[in-house]
């Protein structure tokens, strides 16, 4: 039995403890805002916060999440109005939108650690998050807007 907290609610799982957190969130809890993209930590679509740190949920086994607190895109802000989400909307960042929840979770974790990141810090934080539509320019713009740094 694995016990963990997801978006502030205690939850449990009695399946394979080796199962990645990603599939628990998506298939068991129906929190489908966290996306599958590669299964190997290569694309960042599945990014969630584990005890406040951005992690790839496709590589985080359930047993590694035991006793910890998970935040998904659904739990990032009560009304979907986290400063990063608001900035994302202000610059119309998404195209298809599929990778954007992972991008937002990654960016939110960055700004928590470094409220005023420079270009290099943004690049390093976001390098693991792929966007096949090619929205990187607006993602960078949105992060700067949320951080209140010069574009």
């Amino acid at each position, binding site marked *: 039995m694995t016990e963990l907290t997801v978006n502030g609610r205690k939850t449990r799982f009695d399946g394979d403890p080796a199962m990645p957190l990603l599939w628990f969130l998506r298939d068991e809890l129906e929190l489908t805002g966290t996306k599958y993209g*590669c*299964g190997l930590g290569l694309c960042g679509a599945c990014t969630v916060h584990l005890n406040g740190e951005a992690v790839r949920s496709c590589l985080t086994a359930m047993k590694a999440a035991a006793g910890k607190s998970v935040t998904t895109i659904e739990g990032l802000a009560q009304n979907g109005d986290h400063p990063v989400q608001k900035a994302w909307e202000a610059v*119309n960042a998404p195209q298809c939108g599929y990778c954007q929840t992972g991008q937002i979770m990654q960016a939110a974790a960055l700004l928590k650690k470094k409220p005023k990141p420079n270009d290099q810090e943004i690049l390093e934080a976001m390098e693991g998050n792929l966007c*096949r539509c090619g929205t990187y*320019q607006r993602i960078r713009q949105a992060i700067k807007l949320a951080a209140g740094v010069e574009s």
Partner: protein
Amino acid sequence: MIEVVEISRRGFLGRIFSAGAIVIGAPLVPEVRAAGPAAGDGAWQPSVYLGIEPDGAVKIVAHRSEMGTGCRTCLPMILADELEADWSRVTIVQALGDPKYGSQNTDGSCSVRDFYEALRKAGATGRTMLEQAAAAKWGVAPESCKGRQHFVVEASSGRKAAYGELVPLALSLTPPDANKLRFKTPAEFRYIGKPMPVTDLHDLVTGKGTFGIDARMPGMVYAAIARPPVLGGTLKSLEDAAAKQVQGVQQVVKLEEAKPPYGFKALGGAAVVAGNSWAALQGRNKLKVEWNASEHAEYESAAYKKTLLETAGKPGRVAREKGDVEAEFGKGGKIHEATYYTPMLAHAPMEPPAAVAEFKDGKVVAWAATQNPQAVQQTVAAAVGIKPEDVQCHVTLLGGGFGRKSKPDYVAEAALISKQVGKPVKIVWSREDDLLFDYYHSPAAMYLKAAVDERGMPKAWLQRSVFPPIAMLFSADEQYGGFQLGMGWTDIPYAIPNLRVENGPAKAHVRIGWLRSVSNIYHAFAVQSFTDELAAAAGRDRLEYLLELIGPTRTLDLQKEGLKGGPPADPRFPIDTGRLRKVIELVAQKSGWANRKPAKGRALGIAAHRSFFSYIAAVVDLEVNGSGEVKISRVDIAVDAGRIINPDRVKSQFEGAAVFGTSVALMGEVTVAGGRVQETNFDGYPVARMSEAPVETRIHLVESDAPPAGVGEPGVPPMAPAICNAIFAATGKRIRELPVKKQLA
């Protein structure tokens, strides 16, 4: 947000509108009728619906798929504008797959292009009906009543009536003559031409958007398939004991292998059915499968490349001929030749193919991330042996498409497994499945030859391309390019007295499909690279040379310019060299081309290409460092796509195309050994990350009253040649083969 919760609901269209609503279909000539029992019964064949409810709510049915282009927002904008609807009172409802809408195949950059006029007519019809109703109510001339933001207003008296309250009266009046509608002038446009956020924006940033992979049906199970790794392979033996030991695995079922022509058929194999995605994938990995050999097991991409290049060196079928190329070549003088090669590519949308389907009582209900719900109906019906109309296809949001999700093999898989297990099935495609079982963008070889005069201008030009064609999907032995030759090859817009365009044969050994901008990718690469080579050989400025090669402003009639066969030209979209010249001049000005100062390792490169009826020119500013890494600091793209509906979304499409084109140019390559694709994830098949993408992309839109043309695809083709031309200017190294990374390593 697309609702997927009430999956059992039927009579979908009938539920959209209440019985008292005006429902307007928008085929080429709009028809009008009251909603009610007959609505959506197929009695008439509209392609789009507009409904105005008695409470004033306006509902627009989006019949095309949203994969990031913004069409789910931009098509309703057109209609709402002409209707004079208040955008905040418009609800967008996603259509089911149904031939009554006309084509729903969201592909070929044609959603706005093909429906702009029809949507305006539908909107104008609705507004006119409401204006007539107000006139009747007040006993005044209809001309004095004007629709304004959900009200009809009489200018002289200032009185006004809400759209909703006029609906019952409007319904009792004779609909206006479709040929006598009053359309808004461009100056009166309220939404068209204005940047508008997409309707799904908030859902997309909060994780509420429902993609194919997110769709659920009550009681559904999950399935992952071991497919024949070589096209045409069949199951020899299957050992599933270990798979069945995996916690959560329920059963293993066999699926019949597809036979050529492969079309959109499910490939077949062995499916592991489980209680969640992870168990299905784990179980699939534990299957021990042996496959019978297929004729395609001999396919090696390195040897295949050699064959394509050899074929490109031999005479092929002539697709366009003007003057006498051979006579000119025979005169001697300066001859320039070059051969180009581009590798096989995969689509790799961030969301792999995804669907859930239930076969029950001889019918199928599916929820799918699909670009083509009608192809889902046909493909699923053929697979499970029912009629297309007995397949109900709900379209979710698509996590990228790029052409992959026009081919619904994965939906057929879900339906076939559901038929066997008697439950709804979600088909689980891993990234490995996506890359190993794609409909690949074909590899291509291009040979070009020119005889030039003393100024370096071509007197004769021969170009020949060779690639396994998309037509192999439908006619397994087809080896010639067919319609794909019209994509940047036979339509070359240069003013050259002697010109010949050829195509050589190539047999396909994997499924070939269309990928964002299709053959324009390799054709533009060859033509725009060769143009740059000729300019360099002549010591001329590239941009000035390109303009001279395009020649004076004129309309190009390919039939008179030696085109052999091919479909008749679309009269709405003549090839206008003036528009091509204009985007080149615009991009030159915006990029600072004339004042550029090439430094060692850093330079600008230019390319221009017309595709999907849009005229595009791109200038890339890049640096090549000592280790051969390419850093693109800036891209300027000038775009003439005719009338623009939503400039923000058009700009975003070209920003994205700059990144997609960068992936194509710098890093994309799928290889094959023993008939099996070798790249299995984003490590082997990289796509541009933030650090590899252009740092800044500036889009310059030409204001135009010309009919709207494509925007989703045409930004891609100029990127690879612009990048390679810049690399040549920066380093002196000419790239004739993609990907660049392999050449500069």
